[in-house]
């Protein structure tokens, strides 16, 4: 048995020709999509991609490292405000601004990681929640940040002002490509982190922190690192989100948003990259599109209107959206703890042997 194995096989991006093929197809679709769909969907895709970056980062913390955070809207806010302020106050180019903002978010992630060293479960949830609220409140209290009135986002200039180069992206259509490329980089980066030493250490901490320690993983460094990495992702997502919106105020980053982020990760599937992507896509689509106009959904809408008139109030019909998301959250935990990723794996297994 002198067969030479290729050890790169396990870590390469495309594990097989099939994966490579479908990835290429997906990329082609993603790059052509805005040309064929109405502009409104382009905006929706932008939001979805921003949420994907955040969910993938949050999944590194919640899924892979096993820490709970209910304060990610705070990092999201730091990213958004940091990028805008870097650009308006210091005239930095966009790429530099968003990176600095993300590093600031990562630094705050590190700070939040310090108490997390000793806390777990509900205790950590409360501390991170308090952190998120504090960030929201502090930003609202400082007038240089726009205070409660909110802050207007400068034009998205990819060039460097100081050199006189200017490449301003104005429409959702143009921003789409920037966000798409950023999303691909961030997602592949997250996948690589999880495939290499640091990511494995995160998983080790989640599964058995004592065993992780005795094989040489420094808990202090890696737990805070997990917070920092995940906050970095939230920071990048926040920076992009600001430009998707064009205007935001501290209330944009409220506690409900933190919960929704956590829901994305859990519904998508804990600890997997694909899970974060699927969860962010589904929840964002439901929240922003499908559940927005229940009354206009064919057949079902008419039924709901009739039900409302008979037993409930028509005025409150919109609340169906929060009920549906609540039921999805419960259903996922009960029936498919691995989330949509688990469903996906099952589906794949089913089709693999089809039609037998």
């Amino acid at each position: 048995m002198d067969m030479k194995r290729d050890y790169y096989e396990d870590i390469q991006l495309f594990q097989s020709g099939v994966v490579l093929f479908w990835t290429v197809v997906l990329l082609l679709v993603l790059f052509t999509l805005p040309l064929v769909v109405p502009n409104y969907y382009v905006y929706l895709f932008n939001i979805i991609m921003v949420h994907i970056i955040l969910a993938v980062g949050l999944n590194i913390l919640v899924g892979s490292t096993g820490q709970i955070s209910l304060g990610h809207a705070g990092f999201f806010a730091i990213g958004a405000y940091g990028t805008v302020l870097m650009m308006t106050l210091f005239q930095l180019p966009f790429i530099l601004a968003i990176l600095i903002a993300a590093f600031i978010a990562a630094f705050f992630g590190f700070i939040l990681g310090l108490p997390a060293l000793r806390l777990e479960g509900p205790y950590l949830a409360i501390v991170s929640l308090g952190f998120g609220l504090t960030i929201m409140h502090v930003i609202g209290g400082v007038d240089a940040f726009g205070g409660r009135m909110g802050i207007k986002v400068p034009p998205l200039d990819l060039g460097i002002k100081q050199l006189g180069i200017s490449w301003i992206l104005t429409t959702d259509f143009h921003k789409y490509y920037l966000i798409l490329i950023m999303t691909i980089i961030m997602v592949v980066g997250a996948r690589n982190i999880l495939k290499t030493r640091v990511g494995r250490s995160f998983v080790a901490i989640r599964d058995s922190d004592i065993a992780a320690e005795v094989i040489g993983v420094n808990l202090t460094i890696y737990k805070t690192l997990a917070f920092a990495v995940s906050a970095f992702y939230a920071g990048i997502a926040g920076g992009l989100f600001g430009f998707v919106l064009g205007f935001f105020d501290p209330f944009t980053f409220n506690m409900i948003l933190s919960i929704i982020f956590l829901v994305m990760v859990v519904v998508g599937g804990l600890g997997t990259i694909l899970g974060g992507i699927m969860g962010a896509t589904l929840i964002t689509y439901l929240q922003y599109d499908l559940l927005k106009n229940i009354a206009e959904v064919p057949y079902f809408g008419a039924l709901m209107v009739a039900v409302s008139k008979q037993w409930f109030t028509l005025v409150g019909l919109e609340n169906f959206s929060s009920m549906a998301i609540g039921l999805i959250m419960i259903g996922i935990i009960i029936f498919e703890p691995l989330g949509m990723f688990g469903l996906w794996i099952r589906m794949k297994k089913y089709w693999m042997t089809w039609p037998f």
Partner: protein
Amino acid sequence: MDHFKVENLSISFGGLKAVNNISFSVEKNSIFSIIGPNGSGKTTIFNMISGIYKPDSGRIICDGENIVGSSPDHVARKGVARTFQNIELFSNATVMDNLLLGRHIHMKTGVFAGAFMWGRGSAAAKEEIANREIVENIIDFLDLQSVRNHYVASLPYGKRKLVELGRALALEPKILLLDEPSAGMNTEEKGDLNIWIKDIQADYQVTILLIEHDMNMIMGISDRIFAMNQGEKIVEGVAAEVQCHPEVIKAYLGEDLSC
């Protein structure tokens, strides 16, 4: 210079002296077994060596350096690896990943290097490939090829014990602490384990500290045996000496018997 030495080690938990003034010294590349009834403080000694507990007094000297007070990860970096009585594996990771985690201290890929693993030529990929090769050798050695990509949670007990052993080996330890490696194994598996431990000692040039209840195994492979009861030393010596020591027999069987 002493290879590995424990001097006057003591620890107590809330008034109970779990380990009291224990001293021993281990030769390089030998198998040193610690025996004693349940609750006699064997695992506590291991926990102190690997830095999980901090002893009240005493020194643990590894290659001339006192490692008391170091955190567990520092101890690991000194070349001390261990397994656990009740198996502490990363159960939602594959066997491969568990073993690769054993390589943690020999790798240096950080977040950024890891994130930018674009293609075969990148530093992270090179390091991965090199370490995967080493891990594959251990997998071959322990005969784990069939479960290479399985999740640990889905493995039977005996295999998990082996994975844990493999993880400790991947660390390339100078000193290997094995806490009841044969517990829960059948006779056949125990026989294999016996051979492996011998092979490890020979192939990997490692000093082994062993906690074990299986007397046949202990007597067969140990270079020296250290017997203890209720935190105190009874006797230390080669197999024959310990086996016939009246207090050892008393501690195990509760009555006086002679050989």
